[in-house]
């Protein structure tokens, strides 16, 4: 089913309230077949609420949500058969072994490990040597691989991953994204949420989300292209002092640390900061560097927040 559909996911005017709190405040987006789509934002932005509605686990308060052109309220049983979901706290059975967990999920969906082994082979092979070990005894990285294998065992059309890399070290994060990109190449539509802004660049399209609202939705390149103002990187030998000094320059708009540099925007883009080096030298700074740079996704996110 669904092979000819352009939009695998379609969300229009979605709202979700929990008593007085409005967690999702009117969100619209669509995801086409084979796309790797990212929901990028901090805790409390509404990412998990949106995913729980998409996976038919929770009703929307308002709005229309269609998965594979099916209605999430009426057609939830059909949708679930074609959906893989990896929640943030992986829903593994702690007292079942690696293999028993996988078998359990396969049987629920009326399939077998053998039938879809090809799809999970790359991932499962890494934990297969430990297949008799109980899930609770696995390391974080191994749990993550098992949970992903379980979410894939029924060969879903759409895979939804809620913050799969939160709290995971930089090496494991990189490996996880390589797995996702291989799955995408197999034609699976993937929706993934993350608080790590740098992971946006690995998605085809992203929605930047904050306080229940999508601030921007586009390819990472276009979001960066829309930054719309000049951005400068500045450093000196005393970063702490440099932050204070730059904030007291009244032509400067924002000052944020970014790794070893500070990123600054200026109130008027005609200002080429020609005087800045003199000002900073006057303040006793040494090792001063100032250069114009291109924004990254995190710069864009912060600009949109203000």
């Amino acid at each position: 089913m669904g092979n000819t559909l352009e939009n695998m996911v379609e969300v229009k005017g979605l709202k979700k309230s929990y008593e007085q709190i409005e967690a999702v405040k009117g969100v619209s987006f669509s995801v086409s077949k084979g796309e790797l789509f990212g929901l990028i934002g901090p805790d409390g932005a509404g990412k998990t609420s949106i995913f729980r509605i998409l996976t038919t686990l929770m009703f929307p308060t308002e709005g229309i949500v269609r998965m594979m052109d099916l209605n999430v309220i009426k057609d939830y049983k059909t949708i679930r058969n074609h959906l893989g979901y990896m929640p943030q706290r992986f829903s593994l059975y702690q007292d079942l072994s690696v293999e028993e967990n996988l078998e359990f999920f396969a049987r629920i969906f009326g399939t077998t490990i053998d039938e879809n082994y090809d799809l999970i082979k790359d991932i499962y092979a890494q934990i297969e040597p430990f297949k008799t070990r109980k899930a609770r005894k696995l390391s974080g990285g191994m749990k993550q691989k098992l949970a992903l294998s379980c979410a894939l065992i029924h060969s879903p059309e759409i895979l939804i991953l809620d913050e799969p890399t939160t709290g995971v070290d930089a090496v494991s994060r990189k490996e996880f994204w390589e797995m996702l990109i291989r799955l995408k190449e197999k034609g699976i539509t993937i929706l993934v949420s993350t608080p790590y802004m740098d992971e946006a660049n690995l998605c085809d399209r992203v929605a930047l989300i904050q306080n229940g609202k999508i601030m921007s939705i586009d390819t990472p390149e276009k979001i960066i292209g829309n930054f719309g103002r000049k951005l400068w990187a500045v450093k000196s030998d005393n970063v702490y002092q440099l932050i204070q000094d730059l904030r007291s320059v009244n032509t400067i708009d924002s000052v944020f640390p970014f790794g070893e540099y500070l990123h600054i925007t200026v109130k008027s883009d005609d200002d080429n900061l020609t005087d800045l080096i003199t000002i900073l030298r006057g303040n006793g700074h040494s090792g001063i560097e100032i250069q114009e740079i291109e924004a990254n996704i995190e710069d864009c996110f912060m600009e949109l927040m203000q």
Partner: protein
Amino acid sequence: MNENAENIIEVKDLVKKFGNFVANDHLTFEVKKGEIFGFLGANGAGKTTAIKILSGLSYPTSGDVNIAGYDVYKEREKVKKNIGYMSQRFSLYEDLTVRENIRFYGGIYGLSNKYIKEKTESLLDRLKMREIQNLLISSLPLGWKQKIAFSVAIFHDPKIVFLDEPTGGVDPITRRDFWEMIYEASHEGITVFVTTHYMDEAEYCDRVSIMDRGKIEGLDTPGALKDQFKAQNMDEVFLKIAR
């Protein structure tokens, strides 16, 4: 940070074994007063084990560990009095108010009521949280909780504060506000010992140590590490060491 400052943490040949498993394999390093020291490593590299020893919660198998002038074998209670600790799952009481949490921690560290009261007033002003002092912690946004948790961790003026992934999950502006609090604490002479998975945050540290499989494989300023590993940024340094 002052290059000539005294050492506030001294670790020599620290080994910690669990059965045959060597979680910390001859760690040796020093951290100076007021330094921001980044303690990085892959999941399972042995960071948490080391932090538990440094904070007096667990004994080393062998080696010398001196924290704020006290020996972790013989003077564990003194070690604990002189450090602060904040973890990602920070230990604020959700069903106490902001003010009650501050008072509770002040009490645990044996500070006098008068001192707690005075310091609470100045802290509430500094955090600009006077208006919300009587709200329950559970009702506050994550970023505010993190700031309060950090303030509580240094309320008793410790010599060292250990921060275990303090900035997980918050938006990028709040994350940077938090780092400014760290800079400020360091400026006031508190040594900051911090773990993080954000590699840009590694750049904010004075020096960074990177652990892999129980050993320290890199230890220097971010600039020197990038030179040493011929890397553009700390992300690359980390991948070269831990992959």
